[in-house]
């Protein structure tokens, strides 16, 4: 069931991103990084949704995987990889 919900969620977001990209390109190019951030964060929101679903199913590997990903990203961006 989660698959159907995720696919609808992604379609909706892709349409929004597509429209924002076109609008930004013609009217406000300096806003482009914000749209790209939105696009880059989208897969992680999918991961969180899968995680939420799998926690309900008590899947320990999923919990480990998500914690690893979040931990790595936080340490990467806060710990100097960002600059």
């Amino acid at each position, binding site marked *: 069931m989660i698959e159907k919900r995720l696919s609808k969620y992604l379609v909706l977001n892709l349409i929004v991103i597509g429209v924002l990209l076109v609008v930004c390109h013609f009217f406000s190019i300096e806003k482009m990084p914000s749209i790209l951030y939105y696009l880059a964060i989208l897969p992680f929101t999918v991961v969180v949704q899968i995680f939420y679903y799998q926690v309900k199913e008590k899947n320990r590997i999923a919990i480990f995987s998500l914690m690893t*990903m979040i931990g790595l990203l936080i340490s990467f961006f806060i710990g100097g990889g960002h600059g």
Partner: protein
Amino acid sequence: MLLFLGSYFAGMLGTVIGLGGGVILVPLLTHVFAVDIHQAVAMSLISILMTSIAGSVQFLKQEIVDLDNAMFLASATVIGAILGVQIGQSIPAAFLSMLFGLVLLLMAFLMIYKKKSTAVDQKKYPRAAYVVMIFSGALSAILGIGAGAFKVLAMDQLLRMPLKKSTATSNLMIGMTASSSALYFIAQRKFQSEMMMPLMIGVLAGALTGSRLVKHLPEKYLRVLFVIVVTFIGLQMIGKAK
């Protein structure tokens, strides 16, 4: 307009030969539009996000994505991507171009000598698959490609997953991997804003056309096309590595 048409063609050809747009986008940006290879890698990765998400929609609808394995293996590709971003930015452009060409030639070689998984040995090797995924994530961030060929190969040979399922799972993982390195590139402004819209919309439209076109082309011809295109681009990249 030229960029839109170029990326449309890259997206279409990339989908038809089963590699996504990155393999063609990076050479297109560096050779035709004279973009620095480090920027081309970043722009390609951001565009890959669009095609990966669009592809995932179809695969999720068909319920052929292995979400458990995707989550587990994506943690490895994210580790690889973070390492890859650090490595890739310190590699000189000429060496990066050479590496890109060599990886493409390796892909062509793997396609020619591709073995089908044998029914005799059905043992799974999750640790080995995890290591291959770290390598694949790093390669993706260094070269600006999805590196789906390596992911599918690992899932097929080491986790004994059916090809269709591994392709669908790999597609979702490409998005997760690309997003972690794309976040870094966006923060560092390693892209040209005015080129992003035609690039992303073009590659997405091309990928959608390619996915319809691929149903009508016989697999034998697709393999031949894959080897020709990948070998040609690989040699071009090695030739330009000065």
